[in-house]
C-alpha cells in the first residue's frame, strides 16, 4: 500500500505544497490512456474495414447517442436536474445542420417538387453559399463536405444552446418534478411548433427534407471524433471547480447558494452546454438517417437516453457510455426479439426473465444483508417465472399454445422492463457515481488510512475500529 499520492501526508497541520490528488501518477495514467486509445483505434479500423455495413452504422449510432447521453448526464447526473426535453434540442440541432448542409442538387430538386414549403430564404441558407461568398471556393467541393458539416454542426449546436438557455430560466423558479415537466413541455412544444405553418418555411412541416449527406453521420471516424471531444469536455468540466459547483447544486441547492455559488448562472450554464452537445448529436443523427423528419425526434429518444443513464450510472461518464452501448445493442440487434414465435416459447422466455430478476433481487439482498433474504421482491417474480416456464415447457403440445405471436415492440418492452428493475433494485445504476479510472483499476483507495497513519494512531491500527468514527476515544488521544 504505497503512501497516498500527492497528499500533505500524515498529521502535518498546515498546507505544505499540496498537489491536487488527480495530478498524481500522471505519467503512468497518461501512458495507460494512450494504450486504451490505441486499442480503440484498432477496433475502429477493423469495423471501418469490415464487410458488414450494419456494424459500421451501429458503431456510428453508438457514438452519436453517446454524445447525447453524456451531455444529458451533465444536467441529470451532475447537476441533479431531471431534464426531459433533450429530444427538443436535438431537433433544433438536427434541422439547422441538415438545412445548412443540403447539397445544391437536392435543393433545386426540392424547390421544383410540389412537396416543399421551404421558403427561398431557407433555401439560401447553406454553408456552401457562405463559403463561396467568402471566397473559400476550395471548401465547396464534395470532398471538403466535412468542413461545411463542421460549420453547420457548430451553428446547430449554438442554436440548440440558445434554446437551452431559454429552457434553463424556468429552472430558476421551479424545483424537482415541476421542472422536469416544464422541460418535457418545451421538448414537445418545439416538435409540435416545427410542424406548424409558422415554422414550416424552415422545416418543411412534418414532411421534413431528404437528401442530407450521410457520409459524416455514417462514418465511424467522424462520429467517434465528436464523441471523444464531448467526453473530454464533460470529464474535464466534471473534475473542475465548475463541476464541483454543479454537484453542489445536486446535493443541496440552498447550501450551495449559501456557500456563494450563483446557482442561477450555473444551472443555465449546465442547460446551455448540454443543449449545445445535444444539437451536435442531433445534427449527426439527421446525417446518420439521411433525412430530417419530425418523427425522428419523438420522446422515445429521450426515454432511451434516460434508460442509458439510469442503467449505466447517473453522474458517471463511463457508466453512461456503458448504458448507451446496451441500449444501442438492444435497439439494433434486438431483431430476434421481434420475430414470431409460438406462445409456448414466449412463456418460457418470460419465465426465464422473471427467474433472472428474482435471482438478481436475491443476490442484491444478500450483498446488502437485508433480512429476510427471501423478501416479496424475490419470491413473487420467482414463483411467476417458475409457473410461466413450466406452462411453456409442458404446454408445447397444447393447441392453445401453438398459436404464433409476433413479438411486436419487444425491444422497447425489454428496455422498459430493464429500467423498472434497475430503478427498484439498484437505483444508482451499474457504475453508480464511480468513474472507471486507472486509480480504481490499481485499487488505490484514497479514503483508506495508509500504513504510517495506522502506525501513528493506536486506535487506527485496529482495523475494526478505523471504520467506526470513535469520537470518544479519539478525543482522549488528542488531549493527552
Amino acid at each position, binding site marked *: 500500500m504505497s503512501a497516498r499520492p500527492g497528499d500533505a501526508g500524515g498529521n502535518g497541520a*498546515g*498546507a505544505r505544497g499540496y498537489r491536487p490528488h488527480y495530478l498524481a501518477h500522471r505519467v503512468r495514467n497518461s501512458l495507460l490512456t494512450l494504450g486504451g486509445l490505441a486499442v480503440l483505434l484498432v477496433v475502429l479500423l477493423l469495423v471501418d474495414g469490415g464487410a458488414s455495413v450494419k456494424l459500421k452504422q451501429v458503431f456510428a449510432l453508438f457514438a452519436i447517442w453517446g454524445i447525447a447521453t453524456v451531455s444529458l448526464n451533465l444536467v441529470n447526473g451532475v447537476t441533479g436536474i431531471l431534464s426531459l426535453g433533450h429530444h427538443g434540442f436535438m431537433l433544433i440541432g438536427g434541422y439547422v445542420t441538415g438545412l445548412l448542409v443540403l447539397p445544391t442538387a437536392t435543393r433545386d430538386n426540392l424547390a421544383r417538387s410540389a412537396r416543399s414549403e421551404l421558403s427561398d430564404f431557407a433555401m439560401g441558407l447553406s454553408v456552401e453559399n457562405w463559403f463561396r461568398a467568402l471566397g473559400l471556393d476550395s471548401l465547396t467541393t464534395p470532398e471538403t463536405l466535412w468542413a461545411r458539416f463542421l460549420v453547420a454542426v457548430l451553428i446547430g449546436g449554438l442554436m440548440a444552446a440558445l434554446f437551452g438557455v431559454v429552457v434553463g430560466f424556468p429552472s430558476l423558479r421551479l424545483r424537482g418534478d415541476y421542472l422536469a415537466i416544464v422541460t418535457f413541455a418545451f421538448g414537445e412544444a418545439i416538435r409540435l411548433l416545427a410542424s406548424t405553418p409558422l415554422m414550416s418555411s424552415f422545416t418543411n412541416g412534418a414532411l421534413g427534407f431528404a437528401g442530407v449527406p450521410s457520409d459524416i453521420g455514417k462514418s465511424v471516424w467522424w462520429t467517434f471524433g465528436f464523441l471523444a471531444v464531448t467526453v473530454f469536455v464533460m470529464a474535464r468540466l466534471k473534475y473542475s471547480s465548475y463541476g464541483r459547483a454543479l454537484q453542489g447544486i445536486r446535493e443541496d441547492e440552498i447550501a450551495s447558494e*449559501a456557500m456563494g455559488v450563483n446557482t442561477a448562472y450555473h444551472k443555465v450554464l449546465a442547460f446551455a452546454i448540454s443543449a449545445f452537445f445535444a444539437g451536435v448529436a442531433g445534427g449527426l443523427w439527421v446525417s446518420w438517417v439521411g433525412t430530417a423528419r419530425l418523427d425522428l425526434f419523438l420522446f422515445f429518444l429521450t426515454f432511451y437516453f434516460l434508460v442509458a443513464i439510469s442503467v449505466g450510472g447517473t453522474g458517471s461518464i463511463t457508466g453512461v457510455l456503458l448504458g448507451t452501448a446496451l441500449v444501442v445493442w438492444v435497439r439494433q440487434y434486438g431483431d430476434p426479439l421481434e420475430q414470431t414465435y409460438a406462445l409456448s416459447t414466449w412463456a418460457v422466455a418470460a419465465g426465464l426473465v422473471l427467474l433472472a430478476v428474482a435471482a438478481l433481487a436475491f443476490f442484491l439482498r444478500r450483498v446488502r444483508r437485508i433480512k429476510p433474504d427471501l423478501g416479496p421482491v424475490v419470491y413473487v417474480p420467482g414463483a411467476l417465472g417458475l409457473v410461466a416456464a413450466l406452462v411453456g415447457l409442458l404446454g408445447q403440445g397444447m393447441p392453445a399454445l401453438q398459436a404464433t405471436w409476433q413479438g411486436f415492440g419487444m425491444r422497447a418492452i425489454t428496455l422498459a422492463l430493464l429500467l423498472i428493475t434497475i430503478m427498484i433494485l439498484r437505483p444508482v445504476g451499474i457504475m453508480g457515481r464511480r468513474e472507471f479510472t486507472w486509480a480504481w483499476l490499481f485499487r488505490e483507495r484514497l479514503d483508506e488510512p495508509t500504513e504510517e497513519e495506522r502506525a501513528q494512531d493506536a486506535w487506527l491500527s485496529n482495523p475494526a475500529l478505523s471504520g467506526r468514527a470513535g469520537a470518544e476515544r479519539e478525543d482522549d488521544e488528542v488531549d493527552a
Partner: protein
Amino acid sequence: MLRLAGVNKSFGGLQAITDLSFELAEGEIVSVIGPNGAGKTTVFNLITGVYTPDSGDILFEGGSLKGLRPNAIVDRGVARTFQNLRLFTNLTVLENVLIPQHHKLRSTWVSSVFRTSGYLAQERRMHEVALEKLSFFGPRLMGFRLHQSVEVLSYANRRRTEMARAMATGAKLLLLDEPSAGMNPKETREITEIIRRMRDEGGYTILLVEHKMNLVKDISDRVIVLDYGRKLAEGAYADVVNDPAVIEAYLGKRSDKTSAVARARAADGLVAGSSVDVPGSAAGGEERS
C-alpha cells in the same frame, strides 16, 4: 462592521422580528440567545439574504445587504453554518471545502476545461486554503479523512466540516448557528477554544446563536437576548443574565403556582440552560459546573 437598523419581518400576519437593531464591531464575538422560537434563526436568514426584511436595513461594512441574493452576500464576506447541517453529503470532505471557494474563481468554464495555467494556479490555491482551514481542527479531518465522503463522518466531524466550509468562503463575518449542538462536554470545550482561535488567529468576526450558556459565557464579548422577535437586552454576559426581564422570558411569569425551588434557582442567577433539549446533546442540567 455589521449594523441592523430597525429591521422588521413578518410571515403573513406573524410578526417574526420587530424593530431589531444592533451592531457588531470588527473582531468581536457576539452571541444571540433567547428561548425557542424567539427568531434567532430568522435573524440569520435575514442577514444571509434567504429572507428580505419588510422594513429597516442591514449594513455590512457600510454597504446595504437588503435585497441581495445569498451568493452575492457571501461575495461581500458574510458566511454561515446551518442549524441542521446542510452538507454536500455524497461529496468528499475536501470537495465540501473547495466548493465555497468557487465564487472567487476568476476563470471561465472554458479555461477550466482546458486547464489553463491561470486556472491551475487558482485550483492549487483553493486546495491550500482548504487544507489550511481544515487544519484548524487538528488531525481529525486531515489525512485519509480528506477523501472520505461526508456521510461516513461522525456527527462532531460533520459540524467541524461545516465550520471549515464557512471559513473557506473567504468571509470576514461568520454566522455560527449552534456550533456545539450534538457535542459532548469535551468537544464543546474544544469548539470554544477553536472559535476563540478563529477570532484571534483567523481574524474573523463571529455572530453566534447558542443554547449552551457556559459556551456563551466563556467566549462571547457581548450577548444579545431575543424574545418574540424583540431585543430584550444587550451587553456583557454577567449583567444580561441577571436582568429580570431575561429571567422572566426564560422561566415565564412569577405565579403563585411556581414551586419554591424554581424561584430559588432563578434568584441566584443560575439561569436554567437550554430550556429545550437539542437532539443528541448532553443532559440539560450539566451547566451547573
